[in-house]
C-alpha cells in the first residue's frame, strides 16, 4: 500500500523550523560551550574543558565555590566530582565566606578562562579566582591586600586515602604533616570506578586536617595565614569501570532532535489519518 501525505506549505515550514531549532543545544555544546566560563540564568557559572567541568554556584548558594569535576575517559559526558570548595564552611579572619560577605562575580576581562569573585565586608575584601589552565589544571586562588587568617574546606564524597593516610589509621579528625601537596585517591560510588587527585598549595599552610566519614574521608581542611594562596587541583579516573553509564544530562542535546522528529512525524500521521477518519465518518453519515 502506498501512502502519500499532502503537507501544506505552512506546516512544512513549521516542522522544518521545529527540527532546525532542536539542533541549537547540540550546536552550542559543540561550538560555543568549550573552554570558556558561561553564565547560567540562575547566576551560576560553569566551565567545560576537555578534561574538567567546573561549576561556580550563584551568590545565593554557599556550596560549589567551585566544584571541580573530572570527565572520565570511559564516558566523556559524565562528571565525577573531584573537589568541592565550600563557602558554607570556610572562613577568613573568622568571618564565614557565605554568610558574612557580599559577593560579586564576573568573568575576567583579560581571560575567558578566569572567573573572579570579590567578597566584601567592612574593612575586608577577599578576591577569589578560578582559572582553568590550558595545561589541564584548575587553579583556585584567594588574595587580600593584607594578611588573612583563613580556614578553607574542600569536600569530596569519599576519598579513600589522603597523603597515605587511610580510614584504618584515622578514626577521628586528624592533623596530618604539613606539606604543599595533598594527594588523594577516591572511589566513585556511581560508576564504581577509582581515581586520584592532587591539590598543590602555593604557600606553606599552618595546618592540614582530614575528616573521616563512613569508610573514607569526606573533607580536607587547610588553615593558613598569608595574603594569598592558590590551590592547583588536578585529577583523573581509571579507564575501567564496573557500571556503564546509560544516560546523562549532557546527552540531552542529542536526544532533542530525535524527539522533535518523532513528535513532528506523529503530528503528520495523526493529522493525515485523523482527517481521513473524519471524511469517512461524514461520508458514512450521509
Amino acid at each position: 500500500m502506498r501512502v502519500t501525505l499532502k503537507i501544506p506549505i505552512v506546516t512544512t515550514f513549521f516542522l522544518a523550523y521545529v527540527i532546525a531549532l532542536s539542533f541549537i543545544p547540540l550546536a552550542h555544546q559543540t561550538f560555543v560551550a568549550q573552554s570558556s566560563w558561561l553564565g547560567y540564568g540562575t547566576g551560576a557559572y560553569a566551565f567545560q574543558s576537555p578534561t574538567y567541568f567546573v561549576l561556580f554556584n550563584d551568590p545565593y548558594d554557599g556550596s560549589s565555590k567551585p566544584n571541580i569535576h573530572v570527565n572520565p575517559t570511559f564516558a566523556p559526558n559524565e562528571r565525577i566530582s573531584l573537589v568541592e570548595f565550600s563557602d558554607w564552611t570556610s572562613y577568613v579572619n573568622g568571618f564565614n565566606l557565605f554568610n558574612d560577605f557580599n559577593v560579586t562575580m564576573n568573568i575576567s576581562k583579560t581571560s575567558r578562562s578566569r572567573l573572579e569573585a570579590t567578597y566584601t565586608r567592612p574593612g575586608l575584601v577577599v578576591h577569589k579566582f578560578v582559572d582553568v589552565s590550558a595545561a589541564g589544571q584548575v587553579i583556585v586562588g584567594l588574595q587580600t591586600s593584607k594578611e588573612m587568617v583563613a580556614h578553607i574546606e574542600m569536600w569530596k564524597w569519599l576519598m579513600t586515602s589522603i597523603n597515605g593516610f587511610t580510614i584504618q589509621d584515622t578514626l577521628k579528625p586528624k592533623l596530618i604533616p604539613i606539606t604543599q601537596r595533598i594527594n588523594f585517591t577516591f572511589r566513585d560510588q556511581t560508576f564504581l570506578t577509582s581515581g586520584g587527585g592532587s591539590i598543590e598549595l602555593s604557600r606553606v599552610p599552618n595546618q592540614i586536617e582530614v575528616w573521616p566519614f563512613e569508610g573514607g574521608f569526606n573533607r580536607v581542611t587547610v588553615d593558613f595565614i598569608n595574603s594569598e594562596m592558590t590551590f592547583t587541583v588536578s585529577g583523573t579516573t581509571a579507564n575501567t569501570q564496573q557500571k556503564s553509564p546509560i544516560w546523562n544530562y549532557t546527552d540531552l542535546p542529542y536526544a532533542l532532535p530525535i524527539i522533535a522528529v518523532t513528535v513532528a512525524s506523529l503530528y503528520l500521521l495523526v493529522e493525515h489519518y485523523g482527517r481521513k477518519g473524519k471524511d469517512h465518518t461524514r461520508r458514512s453519515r450521509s
Partner: protein
Amino acid sequence: MEGRVKITLAALAVRLAIAPFFMHSGDMGSIYESSRIALSGGNLYDFVYQQTLQMQHATGLPIFFEGYAYHPLLIYFFIPFYWLFTLIAGNSPVIIGGHYPSLPVLIYPWSPLVIMMLKIPIILADVAIVYLLAGSDLKKARYYAFCPYIVFISAVWGMFDAIVAVFLLLSYLTFTKKSHFLAGFCFGISLVKLYTVVLLPLFVIRLLGRWRALGEFLLGLLITLVPVAYYMIVSPDTFWNVLVIFQGTRVMGGVNLYNFIWTVMDVHFDLQVSRIPNILLLVGIAYLLLRHGRKLPMLEAMLAIMFLSFLFGKVLNEQFLVSIFPLILLCKKCDRRLWIAPFAFIFLRSPFYYFAIPILWASPYFYDLYFQADTLWKSLQTGGYLLMPMYAVGVAFSLLLLYNLLQVLKAPRLKLV
C-alpha cells in the same frame, strides 16, 4: 433554580473549597508582597528594580528578578481583599520569602486565609466567565467551570489569567455589539498581563475607516492606561526596566518548542537565540493582519492572532491558555482539548513546593510526604529525565496550536465595509 445560576454557583463552590490549601509559591508570593507594598503606599516597581540591580551586580549577568512585572492596574484587583485580610489578621507578614525560588516561610493559621483572600478576584473572574458562557450555551459553561486545567490555574495555583480572560471575552462581546468604548476599556484591562497586546493592531485595523468607533475604542483603552502614564512620570527608569526591558529580554521557553533552551546553560547565548521567534512573530502578525485581519470573523481573527503569538511568542507559560480559553469554547473551529498539553506540562515542570503548600506543610506527616516527592522530582529533574517529556509536550502543544491556527483561518470570510 435557573441552570445558569446553578452552574455558576457550582463553579464558585468548587473553587472556594480548594483555594485556601494550595498556591503557586512564586506567583502568589509575588502578589502578596506587591499587595503589602501597594497598601503601605510603596512603589511596586522600585522594589523589583532594586532586586534586579542587586542580582545583576552580584552575578555580572543580564538576569532579572521575577516579581511584579505587570500593568499597574492589576494590583487594584487584589488590594481590597488584602486590606480585608489585614482587618482580621493584622499587618504582620504571613508569607515570608515567597518571592524567591526557595521555600517560603508560612505563618499558620493566617497563610491559608490570605491565600484564600487573594484568590477571590481570580475566582470571581472565573465565575463571571462561567456566567457569561452559560448565557449562550450551558455545555460550554459547564466545560469551563469544571475543566481541571482551569480549576488548577485559578484555584490551586492562584494565577490571575482568568482576569485577563474575562476582560478579553468582554472586549470581544462588546466589540461585536458595537459598544466600542467598552470594548476598548475591557481590552485595556485585559492588558494586566501584557501578552494580549498583540491584539491591539487587530482592533485598530477592524475599525479603520470608522473613525468615531475607533475614537471610542481608543478612548476606552486610554482610560485604562492612566496608571501607566502615572508611573512613566513618577519613576520612568524603574517602570521601563521592570515592564518593558524585563518582558522584552526574557529567555524563551515554556510550553512551546523553545523550551530546549533550558538545556543550554549560557544566558548570553540564550538571549541571542531568543530573538529568532520575535522576528517571526512580527512577520507573522503583519501577514495575518494584512491578509486576514478584516476578512475573518472577529472571534476567529482574535484567536488566529493569539495562536500565532503563542507559536512565536518566546515565552508561553502554562497558564497563558486560560486567557483565550473562553474564546476557544465559543469557536466552532477550535479543539477545546488544547488544555491537556499545558496541564500535563505543569506536573513535569513544577516542583511540589510550587503548589502543594500550604496543605502539605500543615502537619509533619504531610511534610514528610512532600519531602519524599520533592526529592524524587528533583533527582529526575537534575538527571534530565523530565526535560525530555517537557520538550516533547512543548513541541506537541506548538503543533496543536498550529493546527488550530490553520483551522480558524478556514472560517468563512466577512465582507467588511
